């Protein structure tokens, strides 16, 4: 399984906000263990989806010059379940962006139903930092080709491949 917890962006306003979607499907292994007979999207993975949405929003503002790392979740609350067949829309709004890092507020909705809301903080870590090697690559917002999400639905020449 790849570490992609959003499928594509549907709105993106540089330095302000971004909306990404995640389609929940029974083909995903973890839903059969979480929980047997009652498949619901784990909260931790929704948080990851919110962090990927917000992290790319923050990174894009600085042309992806920084290594953006999920550092802290000061607040998160879950209000409702998400089931297979649901389309989750993550809306991230940039709260702070400065040299050391930034923060976003992120909401998760299925239709009009509010599923979760969180505040997420990121730090910018220099590749030369002694801490750089010690960090699990999964904490890096832009590793593992994550940025290819920005190209979802685009043909090779950059044009939209369908009528999205």
């Amino acid at each position, binding site marked *: 399984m790849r570490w992609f917890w959003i499928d594509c962006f549907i709105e993106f306003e540089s330095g302000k906000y971004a909306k990404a979607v995640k389609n929940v499907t029974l083909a995903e292994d973890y839903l059969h263990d979480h929980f047997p007979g009652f498949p619901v999207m784990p909260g931790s993975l929704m948080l990851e989806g919110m962090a990927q949405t917000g992290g790319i929003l923050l990174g894009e503002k600085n042309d992806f010059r920084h290594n953006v790392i999920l*550092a802290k979740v000061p607040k998160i609350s879950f209000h409702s379940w998400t089931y297979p067949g649901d389309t989750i829309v993550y809306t991230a709004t940039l709260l702070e962006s400065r*040299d*050391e890092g930034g923060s976003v507020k992120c909401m998760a909705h299925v239709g009009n139903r509010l599923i979760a809301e969180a505040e997420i*903080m990121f730090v910018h870590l220099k590749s030369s930092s002694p801490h750089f090697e010690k960090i699990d690559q999964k904490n890096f917002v832009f590793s593992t080709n994550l940025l290819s999400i920005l190209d979802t639905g685009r043909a090779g020449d950059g044009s939209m491949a369908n009528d999205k």
Partner: protein
Amino acid sequence: MPTTDEIYEKVRETLVDALGVDDDEVTHAATLIGDLGAESIDFLDIVFRLEKTFGIKIPRGELFPENLASADPSFASDGMVTQQGIAELRKQLPYAGFDRLIQDPKVENIQDLFTVQMIVNFVEAKLANAT
């Protein structure tokens, strides 16, 4: 310009939000790391929140300088902060109270200079300069 008490109340709310501590844990003398459990990333979070709450700008390192103890070998000897070290810390942390560190100048006590009162003093000076 808000009064010192008003500033203190807002600083208290800020720390409750940033550190997830209870209201009554945040006292004037409480140390951020020892008493309130702040970690390095929390300092950035606190700076973000103070800027928003008070409408001020806090440049990097101004409130919470980095690498305080490692600046110069003459600042510490045998695990104790030297006179020279204290003088340097006073320069870097003009809003901190030094009584406790002077009584017990162990290097590991440097972190106790970061108190709730230090933030209140800092914000008060920042607001006074702005008006």
